[in-house]
């Protein structure tokens, strides 16, 4: 463990603690008598029982993917707030393939859906990438537009090809189109009556997410491609001087970023837990991904943890509804906690400066000159 890693970890803890504190105050204001109980639930529910642990991992899967998506673009100096649209596109592709193509063997169909969703996300991500590279359109603007275009397109296509009028959402995938559970159902379960189990739907998705995170880490840190991407992100003039093609890297980075989000969408809708709404709302996953990326300090391994943590809080938060907290309050509390995560870099810089000072330990890093 080096100093930097310690600082990163510490600063993540600090912002989290601050967020929790304010979150608690919100609970207190909304319903003082139940607030402590609710707060405890948020903090402990995810670990109260092995099935909940499974659900934490299940919930973490899509936001780890969008977190990786945002972080990857960020390393190239791009702010991909289009992850939501890419995610929706990937999810839609997975649903369309999963509910059709009955002739295909199950395994092949799942694989096909994953690959196609990834590709769809990549293509949707390429749009702002190309616009930025060749027309100098700021990616934030074009991402917002692709988010909305994606949203309407998804609504339209679901409505047309995979609509289930009974729930007003997309049709459920046939069981054979879902991700394999890898025997997780025998681990992450709780016996609530003798012989009867509540089973978490956690599945191969989390494994895929972790593997992808590791691959992304390797790409960024070990390959010449990652070296180029980061050079563009850190200092585009120096990258240009070194003969690195800015445009190519912008497009490549946005495509990979989009691919990650698109795959995330597939992993979510192929879990057998969610249906896609056909009601013109932007999905929250892309935006949550921004917080997850920040909280994980844009580090792929950090994102595995921050994604799990955010999922953990969401699960506990949702649980407080049984104590009479409205879903809105729960959302506010979780959002407050996540918003605080945005301060993580600030805190890290601050800690870097002052902890060193306090402990009289060696070393700060500023402008050497």
């Amino acid at each position, binding site marked *: 463990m080096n*100093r930097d890693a310690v600082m990163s970890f510490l600063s993540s803890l600090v912002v989290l603690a601050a967020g929790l504190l304010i979150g608690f105050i919100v609970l207190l204001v909304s319903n003082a008598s139940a607030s402590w109980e609710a707060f405890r639930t948020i903090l402990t529910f995810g670990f109260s029982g092995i099935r909940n642990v499974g659900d934490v991992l299940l919930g973490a899967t899509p936001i780890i993917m969008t977190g990786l998506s945002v972080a990857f673009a960020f390393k190239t100096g791009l702010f991909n707030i289009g992850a939501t649209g890419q995610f929706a596109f990937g999810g839609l592709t997975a649903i369309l393939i999963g509910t059709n193509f009955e002739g295909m063997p199950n395994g092949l169909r799942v694989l096909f859906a994953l690959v196609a969703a990834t590709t769809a996300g990549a293509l949707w991500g390429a749009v702002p990438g190309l616009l930025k590279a060749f027309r100098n359109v700021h990616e934030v603007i074009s991402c917002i537009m692709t988010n909305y275009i994606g949203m309407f397109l998804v609504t339209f296509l679901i409505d047309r090809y995979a609509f289930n009028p009974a729930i007003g959402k997309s049709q459920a995938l046939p069981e054979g189109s879902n991700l394999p559970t890898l025997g997780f159902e025998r681990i992450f379960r709780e016996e609530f009556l003798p012989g009867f189990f509540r089973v978490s739907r956690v599945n191969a998705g989390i494994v895929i997410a972790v593997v992808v995170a590791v691959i992304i880490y390797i790409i960024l840190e*070990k*390959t*010449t*491609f990652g*070296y*180029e991407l*980061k*050079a563009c992100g*850190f*200092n585009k*003039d*120096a*990258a*240009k*001087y*070194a*003969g*690195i093609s800015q445009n190519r890297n912008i497009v490549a980075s946005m495509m990979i970023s989009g691919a990650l989000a698109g795959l995330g969408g597939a992993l979510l809708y192929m879990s057998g837990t969610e249906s896609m709404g056909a009601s013109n709302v932007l999905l929250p996953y892309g935006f949550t991904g921004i917080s997850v990326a920040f909280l994980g300090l844009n580090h792929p391994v950090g994102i595995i943890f921050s994604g799990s943590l955010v999922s953990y809080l969401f699960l506990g938060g949702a649980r407080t509804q049984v104590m009479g907290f409205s879903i809105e309050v729960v959302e506010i509390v979780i959002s407050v906690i996540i918003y605080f995560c945005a301060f993580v870099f600030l805190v890290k810089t601050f800690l870097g400066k002052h902890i060193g*000072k306090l402990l*009289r330990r*060696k*070393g*700060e*890093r*500023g*402008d*050497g*000159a």
Partner: protein
Amino acid sequence: MRPFFYIFKGGNPLYIIEMRNITKSFPGIIANDDITLQLKKGEIHALLGENGAGKSTLMSVLFGLYYPEAGAIYKNGEPVQIQGPNDANRLGIGMVHQHFKLVHNFTVLENIVLGVETTRSGVLQMKEAREKVLALSKKYSFDIDIDKEVRHISVGMQQRVEILKMLYRENEILIFDEPTAVLTPQEIEALMQTMRDMAAEGKSILFITHKLDEIKQVADRCSVLRKGKMIGTINVAETTKEEMSEMMVGRKVLLSLDKEEASPGETIMSVRNLTQKGKAGEKDPLKKISFDVKAGEILCIAGIEGNGQTELVYALTGLKHIDGGQVTMEGVDITKAKIRKRTETGISHIPEDRHRHGLVLEYTLAQNTILQTYYKPTHQSMGFLKAREVIAYANRLIERFDIRAGEGADTPARAMSGGNQQKVILAREIDRDPKLLIAVQPTRGLDVGAIEYIHRQLLAQRDSGKAVLLVSLELEEVMNVSDRILVMYEGEIVADVNPKDVTFRELGLYMSGAKRMESGVAV
């Protein structure tokens, strides 16, 4: 032996600032090791030392940017705590950093008052500020338009803004960290005068520079640091330049270079009618420039800053497209070639702005050494960087070029001293074994020992049959190192001379546009 007054608990009231026994370390290095520095009121006190000796660190401690592990600071004999720049400011300490810290889309005036604005019921009161700034600017004959945005003014002017900032805050202890490194000779002259004026008024000045001439010109005393330790403080009037450089490096340094006659060979790069159109209403930066660079010669482009040198280099290296003309490298037309392609034809480029083009500050020293070669089989295989080889390569360069950094190859570039950052670029570009080395101000910010080394490297390149195109603003360097001099003035080449046949004065006339050669220029 400690002087007698150390028996008192306070500092010595003789000195306006006394830094006593300061120790500050960074990972892997003690940047300031038990340093004591005493500044008298009204003096100009120079700080001299090799790259990485700890000068900027010591000044940053005084300005509150770093907190030392040991030592104390006294003002007029009273102990003071300096926890940050605000404390420093309150004590009347101001600093002009090596790399300026201005807000580029603010006007000069706004930059000056930033942080100490006067407001009345929440509304900004600029009128008084304006008058005060104008008065100050007039007093020091700064000739500056205070309503211009900072991004539209020259580096020399930006520095004046930084100085005005200190004056506006009525700082009485002024720190200048390598202020002359970015200035033209004329601007340096003006700055020296400003410093003398300020000292005459009772302000006390700490002045970091690598140029011994400047110390000779303005400083009263000079403190010398070496590898984080204080070597001693001397009276400038009683010391020669040679003695100062020996104190600083620990050995004798040859301040002049002796070199063999050049024997130019084949033409390496050939430039014909290079033209760059200016923006509407502006002059063309390059007007039909033509010249050849031959193997085995050091060709120098001299001129006052802003006469097209930057644009010329951008055009040759491909950083900017040109509007007309042709560039060939060993007969191959590279006028339209991409940067990577040009690099591959054997062009190395030591850029003018090391932070903008030369380095990725977030990368480590090792990562920066492969910026131009990371894709070569020596540094990667099948798309994976060879981590061990890269470190080994960086270590070789560190050894060969005497690069000093706390954590060796793993030091983040940002954490290196300015001169050592420059050495990383030099090492990378020279080690690539180029056919043509384009070096823009390669010794900017280097200490005398390092300059000597770099000049030798340039000569060695030449003697091994390489071509060197040196762009320099410093006449001394131009005259010492080059085999042939082209002078640029307003985007044209106005002279093509041999350094042996020309005097400093004559060169000056060409550079200022007062004189020009008519026929057969350059080709």
